Structure formats: structure tokens, C-alpha cells
């Protein structure tokens, strides 16, 4: 779990990992120069460096990011949630950019996501076309990429989550932020770097309104163990 100054989902994600799942958790400080042997690196939500200038722009240059990029290049699992997704785009680990919500407003609300890829280490516990209910919380989560990049993403099946209605239909009024192609999460070509705007750590226990988020954490945990035993 990487912590930048201004990160705030670190403790929430950390809670799910070690209290709900009982997995082993290490915090990585933005000044750290190694990844302490982690199997999966999570870049959690927040406002790293205040998101000043642009979301993720300054965080992308934190010392720890050099190691994260190396790790990703070697096929390590990297998972960016919300601010983490924005940082991954700034760091060019994922294509495109996240711009201001089309409403120009911050949005914190429950959304539905349709799972387009269930064969990834992050989604192996989901069914393809399954609809997940996961909240968003961001002011700049509108996914943008140029047409060529978008069609490459679509062709390669790199779109992992799309905003949808309860039934899984992708429709403009189910798109909370104006993302192109209703994109809520994408993966890199190799399939080891995932970025998503919604917050799965906020729905990993029934008392918080749902447990769909836990499916993603479980998937990651199992994949990490598999990678280890292979």
C-alpha cells in the first residue's frame, strides 16, 4: 500500500486487506526506495500532493514510483484506485488521462459497474458481465483518450469496468462523470496494471452497504498467492 502525502484510502484499503481478509499488509512511504517484497502494489485513493496542478501529476515523480514502474514492467501486479488510477495515467503505466467530471462537481455516490474482463488477476472472482455495485468519490474521474487509443483499448479488451445501470446496460445516464465509452477501469496490455475510479474498499463489509468490492480484493489475493507458488 503506497502512501503519498495526501493519500487517504490507504487505511481503508489496509483495513480490508488485514482485518477483513487477514492478508499481510505493508505500507510503502512515498520516499521509500524499495517495495519490501510485496506481491501486489496498491496505489490508493486520496489527493496526493493535494492534486495540485493536475491529479497525480506530482505524485508520479515520488521516489517510490520509480520502483513501482520497474515492478510493473517486470509483470508485478499494480492496482490503482481513484487517485491511484490518476497517478498510473500520469506515470504512463496506463494510457489516457482523467479530467474534470462533466458535471464540474465532485461526486460521491453508489454506481453500478459491468465487468468486461473476468480473466484478470484483479477480477478472477467475478463473472464476465457481472454487475458490481461500488461507490465512486472523485471530482476528476472522466476518462479521456484520443480516438486511436480508445479503439486500441477496445480492440485489446483493455476496458475492465464500465459504468452501467443495475441491469448492466451501459447508458449515458448511468455515466456519472462523462467518461468516454463509460470507462470506469482499464488494464494495461499485459494485464498486470489495473486502474479504476470506483472504490472497492468501501464495500467490502455488509455494514457498509455491500460486499462487491471484496470480490476484487479476494481475486488479487488469490492471484498473488498463485504467482508465488508457480
Amino acid at each position: 500500500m503506497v502512501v503519498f502525502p495526501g493519500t487517504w484510502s490507504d487505511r481503508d484499503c489496509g483495513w480490508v486487506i488485514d482485518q477483513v481478509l487477514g492478508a499481510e499488509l505493508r505500507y510503502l512511504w512515498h520516499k521509500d526506495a524499495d517495495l519490501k517484497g510485496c506481491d501486489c502494489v496498491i496505489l490508493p485513493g486520496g489527493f496526493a500532493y493535494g492534486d495540485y496542478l493536475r491529479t497525480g501529476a506530482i505524485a508520479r515523480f515520488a521516489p517510490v514510483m520509480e520502483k513501482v514502474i520497474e515492478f510493473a514492467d517486470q509483470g508485478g501486479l499494480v492496482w490503482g484506485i481513484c487517485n491511484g488510477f490518476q497517478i498510473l495515467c500520469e506515470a504512463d503505466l496506463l494510457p489516457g488521462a482523467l479530467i474534470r467530471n462533466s458535471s464540474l462537481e465532485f461526486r460521491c455516490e453508489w454506481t453500478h459497474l459491468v465487468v468486461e474482463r473476468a480473466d484478470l488477476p484483479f477480477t478472477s472472482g467475478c463473472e464476465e458481465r457481472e454487475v458490481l455495485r461500488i461507490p465512486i468519490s472523485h471530482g476528476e474521474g472522466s476518462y479521456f483518450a484520443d480516438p486511436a487509443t480508445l479503439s486500441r483499448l477496445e480492440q485489446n479488451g483493455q476496458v475492465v469496468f464500465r459504468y452501467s445501470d443495475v441491469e448492466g446496460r451501459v447508458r449515458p445516464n448511468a455515466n456519472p462523470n462523462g467518461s468516454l465509452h463509460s470507462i470506469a477501469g482499464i488494464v494495461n496490455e499485459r494485464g498486470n496494471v489495473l486502474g479504476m475510479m470506483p472504490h472497492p474498499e468501501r464495500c467490502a463489509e455488509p455494514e457498509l452497504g455491500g460486499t462487491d468490492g471484496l470480490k476484487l480484493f479476494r481475486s488479487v489475493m488469490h492471484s498473488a498467492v498463485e504467482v508465488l507458488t508457480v
Partner: protein
Amino acid sequence: MSLKQIDERRLREVALTPDEYRVIVQALKRPPNDVELGMLGVLWSEHCSYKTSKELLRKLPSTGPAVLQGPGENAGAVSIGGGWAAVFKIESHNHPSAIEPYQGAATGVGGILRDVIAMGARPIALLDSLRFGPLPASRRHFEGVVAGIGGYGNCIGVPTVAGEGYFEDCYANNPLVNAMCVGLVRADQLMRARAEGAGNRLLLVGADTGRDGIHGASFASLELDEDSASRRPAVQVGNPFLEKCLLEACMDLTRTDAVVAIQDLGAAGLTSSVAECAGRVAGAGARIDVLRVPRRERSMSPYDVMLSESQERMLVVVRRGREREVQRIFEEWDLTSAVIGEVTDDGAVTVMEGEDEVARLPVKLLTEGAPLRRLTGVPPEPAPILVIDSLPPPADLGATLLQLLASPNLCSRMPVIRRYDHMVGDSTVIEPGGDAAMLRVKGTRVGLAVTTACNSRYCELDPNLGAQLAVAEAARNIIATGAQPLAVTDCLNFANPDRPEVYWQMEETVAGLAQACRALEIPIVSGNVSLYNESSGGAGIYPTPVVGMVGQIDDYAERLHAGFRHECDFVLLIGSSHNDLGGTEYLKVVHGKVAGRPPALDLVRERAVSRLILTAAHAGLLRSAHDCSDGGMLVALAEACLLAGFGMRGPALEPEPPLRLDAAFFGESPSRFIVSAPSRAMPELQSLARRHHVEIALLGLAGGDVLELEGQLRVPLSDLRQAWEGGLA
């Protein structure tokens, strides 16, 4: 020393009266120099000295078995079980928000967070209680304030989980922005901002000091007038990112025993934080050197440094010799810190500029020297009488309900709530939108319910009763979640107290708060006063005593939501209805009147109803509970449907005379709840109600997609939703 020798303009600038100046000269046996005058001016402002309200506030009950810290510290604290303490406080940022809505509201949030952090607690929730003039004219204020609160809270990662928003003519020029923060700390690690131990070091941490907001405290103690424009640089720009780092660093401080105290810098900046910190320890003083204060701008005078209200700064009292250890913690977060002085035992605040002494004032003179203002209250003209017999009965109940649901004072708050991150922290087990919100205390089963309440229209009509009703409503919000009310923090917003009617309102309000809090056994552990919410020429605001309350439930698995949970559950009205139409939203919206007496409150009945609800909730008899407040029973019923996503069907409601039909539906009698329960729970519920001497009436069965009372009213849920969700558009 005669008054002639001091320029009157200069006195006005520091907001001191000639009388106050005389007291200063007498106490010092010399005229104060310019820096001293500025320091006294800010600390003697109403905002810091409470010179108008102190006497009154003494009447408020502040003790109770759960109280760990009452008024007098940066925030109050109560024990919530499991070794944890809840720390909370409410504060106004009305004047800055009137001038610059976004930054005013944002820095209000920043300020109240620091009060909680100073107690060693981690903030876990924010609440905002807001009042504006009617839309659309006041949209700029409304949009700016909401964006500012979200801008700060969302960035720092503390959820904004509850609050209020009202729209009334009286707030058009004087919007109210009251922010409340709740934090958690282990009870044995609760900190107090006391400057103990001569020789201990004073460390200033966080933002560099600039020329922001000089005289902000005095500014908050004046009426807004034409001149306010020229004082505009008094508005500050907040940096929530910096405060997030400050917050985390302060939490890290608990790892060391090198820290004696933490004090936030708020209104009146360094001057007040140093003086207050020293003032809490008999005989203590402080000596600081302004040259050691890190600055944002060149050529700042000692005056500027002492009075600057730059945000995101904290004063830390560190054991002598352990400075490096503490500074290293701040360095880890890339925060600037500087030793700017030390604690002394000479009972004075001494300000040096290098080798030169630029100010030296007795701590007691600064913190307690302001002569109390003894004002007299005179009741105003009595409120317009309401002859309810003259009110025509509602022609169409359904249409009236829709009209009320669409009223900006009653409609859905979702357009605001969704702009606040209300989930961060993974603790929000009751989301905003119902009555109180609830946060779990991670690692325990304890739930903390939080709310704010105040119907200022009631307070305008009868400030004493209005204040009681505010306490009762806040308590009911807490009880509706199944939690037990624990303690209150209050923000007393008034117009200009120099007007005898306003001072009378203050007296009555405090009497009402005290009475209700005593009767319900809920102590007031912190609060804030904001006066002069009045524009020259224009009218002042309604008396607005905002009541912030926290409550506790041992196991949050037993919590109740406001919306119905299951179709086919029984829907019941608990409590009795009377012809309480005075001051209601119905009277205002439908009949265009603000008149009459507010709804009558019987605190003994209020307690009986609360006990019934809590007993039933605890026994697992209830599926949901929602308190009836603004808009009355029918609005509460519609809200319970809307939150559930399904309707309710029941027989026509035939009130027994002398209860009028409009009062039964839209009257705002307090001490009532709409609850739902599974059929099997009915016998036990009925006998419980009998035992508590509380009325219980079956309204119908939950379910379907209409709200229907046969032959009386039939409205599709979609129509209700359209009215309710569009009210703020």
C-alpha cells in the same frame, strides 16, 4: 494617560472601545504600544473573549457521567465505551463565508478540524449546518459554500456525514456556515492545550505565516457594512493538503511522550494560541521571538506576525531538550517547524524581535481582562398571533404534500450530500439523508450517531421554546438510529446583541437550551458564539442556536435506518399529534405566514417516547424509525417511503376532534416518530407503548409504488420523488 493621546481611528481599527482602552491603561499602568494594542484588540474581540455571552453561557449544564472534557478546551470530549472518547466541537465561519463563500466555508472546516486534532483525536466526521437566503437569489452563496466544504473535507479525507440547510429571507445578506467535527481518541490519550512546565519549548508547525486575515477575529465581531469590502484581504485561502499532512504528523506525535500540549492557531493567530495555552495554567507565561517565525512574505512586522491568521498552523509545547525528536516527525511529512520560544512562569506573554522586546502583556489581561459587557434584554413585539380557525382546510392533500416536498427546506439533500465524500474512513454505517448519520468505531461494535438541528423559525417566534425544540429534535435524530444521546455542542448565531431585543433572544435561548439539556440529561461540552449577523440597514438573522449532538449505540448491528426496510411491514405513528401549526413549513409554504407559537413541547413526554423507541429498538422490534419534524407527519411518511424505494397503503386517517386534519398531516408536533415493524412484533410493541404511556397508531402497510390513504390521498412514488429531488434545482 488620557484618551486624547490615542487616535480614535486606531482604536476602531483594533475594535476596542475607549472604555476598554482605559481599562488596559489602568491595568498596565502605561499606554500599550502598537503591537500590544493589536494583540489586545483581537483577544478582546467578541469572537475570542465572549465578553457579551460569557455570563449567559455559565448557565448551560456541562457535567455528566460520560463527560471527560467540558467547555474551556479546544473541544469537548465524552467517553463512549471500549476505552474510547469522542471529541467534538462546532464553530461558525459566517462572516468570511458571506464575503468569499468558497474559501470562507473551506477554512471554517479547516479550523474546526484543528480544534479536534489539538485534543489528540483523529477526526472521523464533519457536519455542516448551513443557512442562506432564498434561491435562486442566494445561489452564489449556496454553491460556493457547498463547494468549499466539499473542497476541504474531500481533500483531507474526513467524511462529511450530516448537517442541515435552510433557506430564509433573514439570511440573504448573512448566510450562516457552522461546521462541526467529531474525532476519536483513546480516553487516556486525550490531550489538553496547557502550557505546562517553564522552559518547555514552543514549536510552531505547518504553513508559513503570511499577512492573511489580520484582524479576522475583530472582523467577525462587527456587522457587515459597506466597509467590509475594504477589509477583504481578511479572507484566507485554505490548504487542505497541508492540513492533511499536519493531521497525520500530529497523530504520529502520540508515539512520543515529548509533547506536552498541542494548540491550534485559529482566530487571532499566534496571539491567541500562545495566550490561551498559557492562560490554562496558573502563573504560566510564554516568551516568543517573532524573527523565528517562518514567513511567507518579506518585511512582515511583529504586529503582522502576531496577528496573522494564516491557516494550517499548530503550536506544539515540547519538553525541553526533545525538540529535535519532535521536529523529525514533522520533517518526515515535509512540514516546516520552528522553535519560536518557550514557556515561562512569569504570567506574561513576552514578544521579542531578536534582542528587542516588542510587547509584554499579562496573560490574564489578554485572556480574561476584557470587561464583560452587561447588556439588558427587552422582549420585542410579540410574534403575530395565529388564528388557526381562519385557515382554510387543504383542498387537495396530495398536491399539498408535493408542494411541501419540493420546498427547499424539506426536499432531498442529495444534490449536496453527493458532493461530499461521506464514506471515506470505511466507517459510515448510516449514510447521510435520514436522521442522524452513524459511524462505527473500528475494532469495536460501538456506533456513534451524529446530527445537527435547529429550526430557527421557531426560535424567531419564541427563542426559549425554539431552543428547547432544537435540543429535542437533535435528540430524536439520534434516537431514531437506536443510539442514546450523549452530549451537545452548540453554535449560538445571533444578530447584533447591542439591540435589547437581540440580547433578550440570547437570554431566552440559553435558558431554553439549559432547560432542555437538563431535562433530557444531555450536557453541553463545547460550543461557539457568533454575534453581529446583521447587515447595517437590513434586518438581523433569526436567533439560530444550532445544536450538534453525538449519541452512542453499543452494537451498531442494532442500528435503525430512517427508510422502511421490508414490504409488508407495519407502519406506525408513535406519539401524539396536536394542533401545532404555528411556525410550520406548511404555514409558510401554503399560507405564506410566519406566525403563531411554535409547537408545544413536553419534555417529560419527549423522554417517554425516546425510551419507548430505544427499548423497542434494542429488543429488535423495529425495522426503521424516522422522526417527525419539519413538514410534519405526512412529510416524514413520504420520506420513509422515498428512502425505502417503495410506498405505503393504509386507511383514511380520521383525526379525533379537536385535532384538525391539516394539523394531523402537516402540524409539527414534536415527540413523534414514524416507525416500521414486522407483524410479529406488533403485540409486544403495543404493550410496550402502553407501559410507557405513549400513543401508537397503525398507519398502514409498507410496499407498492404509491403512498395511499384510502379515499384521502394517493400519490405515486415517482411523483413524490420528482418533487422531492427537484427542490434544490
